[in-house]
């Protein structure tokens, strides 16, 4: 299983990666720091030109507030592209603002989770989301 983590805060990225690494059957977590890099990864362009180094993710974890290209724009691009539409996108944000949640679902996010300010809860959250989206949930490849 491959996870693409789009997160601009390096500390948050480390926290999430540390939790994900304890999830079984996870091959790797690819961390990008903005939406632009995430798109390059998905399209296997630029630094991710080697398809071996940029395998198609089974799950995208998305922060909203990122430089260059924010989470919302990336979400729109992913869900607007038939090649990537079926990849589950889980938004992970510090914002519990209703308008942010609504905008994400408008753009067809699969789930919206608020980052908890509590170590145990954060750990639990990542475990639960990973077990649901990576183990229980069925995904498919795009129809050619």
């Amino acid at each position: 299983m491959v996870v693409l983590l789009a997160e601009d805060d390096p500390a948050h990225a480390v926290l999430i990666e540390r939790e994900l690494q304890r999830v079984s059957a996870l091959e790797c977590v690819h961390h990008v720091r903005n939406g632009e890099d995430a798109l390059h990864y998905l399209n296997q362009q630029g630094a991710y030109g080697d398809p071996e180094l940029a395998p198609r993710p089974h799950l995208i974890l998305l922060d909203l507030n990122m430089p260059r290209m924010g989470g919302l724009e990336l979400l729109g691009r992913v869900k607007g592209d038939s090649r990537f539409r079926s990849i589950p996108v889980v938004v992970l944000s510090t914002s519990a603002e209703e308008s942010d949640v609504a905008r994400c679902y408008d753009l067809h996010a699969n789930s919206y989770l608020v980052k908890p300010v509590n170590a145990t809860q954060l750990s639990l959250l990542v475990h639960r989301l990973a077990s649901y989206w990576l183990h229980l949930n069925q995904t498919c490849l795009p129809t050619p």
Partner: protein
Amino acid sequence: MGTNSQFDSPQDHNVSHSDSSRCIGDTGDPPSKVEFTNRVLREVIEASARSTGEDLFRSLVKHLARSLGFRHAMIGRLVGEGDRRIRTLAIWGDGKPVENLEYDLRGTPCEQVSRGETCYHLRDVQRKFPEDELLVQMEAECYIGVALRDTMSRALGVLAVLDDRPAQNAPEIRAALTVFAERAATELERMAADEATLASERKYRALVETSPYGIIRIDSAGGFLSVNSAGMTIFGRTDEHPVIGTRFLETVAEEDRRKVGEELRSASQGAAREFEYLAINGKALQASLVPLGDSEAHVETIIGIVMDVSERRKVEAEREALIAELEAKNAELQQFTDSVSHDLKGPLVTISGFLGHLAKDVSEGDQERIRDDIRWISDATQRMKQMLDELLELSRAGSVISSREPVDLGPLVHDLANMVKSGDDSESLEVVVADDLPVVLGDRGRLRQVVQNLLLNAVKFRRVNLPCRVEVGARSNSGGWEVWVRDNGVGIAPEHHERVFRLFEKLDSDRSGTGMGLAIVKRILETHGGRVWVESEGRDQGSTFWFTWPSANQEKGAGS
């Protein structure tokens, strides 16, 4: 019309027929009586022919005295509070008109008459009314008075004849007096009605003329018939340029003529209308039209009330604008607090998350992880402190540091350029300051902060492996000065030109800072009536930040 005849019970019964030769009112034998009656009727007809008002009264007393043979005849109307006085309308005496006079009723024979009685004092009238000096002046021996009453039987006045001889109570005289009195009463009532109409008209004219609203009358084709003075003011007309003779639509602004034309058509078809429109003189007017005519289908005139509502509309528009501005400010504030709370939560997530790891790593004795955890926690607290400091700075950016004064931008920019260069460890930094920088009027402290943040921003977003070059210059515009800070740095894609000024917005997470510097610049400029924007072709094309500032001789817009 009644004269309340008391002929059947005359007050004075002891009229002696023996001395009829010295009496008036003896009309002789029956044929003479008929002739007398005919003459009286002719006299009344003659008296009332083609005359009205006081002319008629003068004519009546003359013919009355002449036909009945009395020395004096008079007609008077009741006046004063409680109708206690008589003002004569005409007096005839000794063959000629006598000047009118006014007298108190008390102690006169007319007093009884005024109560509606017909009074006969056929002789000795002076003795009966010793206080009445008029009787003395007239040398009156007899007095016959008849009340003048209106159609509702209300007493209006008296008609009286007097003579220095005793009188006889002859039916012909009674009949004659009744006829004259009827005629006089009719005329008196008509005059009273005319006066009431006139008074009412005066009252309404005064109301119309003093009304603060324009009151207009137009014909069914829309032509002005009358306009009061308030209307003249509203339409901006004068006596030299009256509206009479012009059409209502001519006072309407071009763009509203069609609409008002339809309203007028509606009113002329019998519908009351109320509408607002723009006048040709630019005023916002409100009009109410009420059609007048004998039927809905036949409207003769339209009465209109026109109000100038320009001021009211202006106030409303200003209020709307103010509300919109407040709502925008409110939304901005909401966005600000949302942004602050989310962004401050970031470091908290980090701190609490790594504290959890720290507890575990300590128990496992993993020294390397412990150091790592502590470093993340420490970085997050530092970042949080920096954010809070800059938030405080932002909140202060709206306030004044120093009072408004002329500030020479040249020395100020040179000073800041040196400071930035001395704080930069790289040799490859060049700041070029134009030598024609202006003197501007403003808060020196805030102005310094704006330039400093822009310079620091330019240096921070320099391109790797390229000498950093920053230029500062200014050009005048209509409102003051436009100052620019141009760099050859990383540039900003056009879609992010707005975003860079938002709170905690960073286009590059690799660079240090909290993304607050440009937000502070924007806040300061907004408070000082200026504006900031950025021009950049895109990635690696460099950026030019512009801001406007009022010039030294420009008072406006430099408030604090």
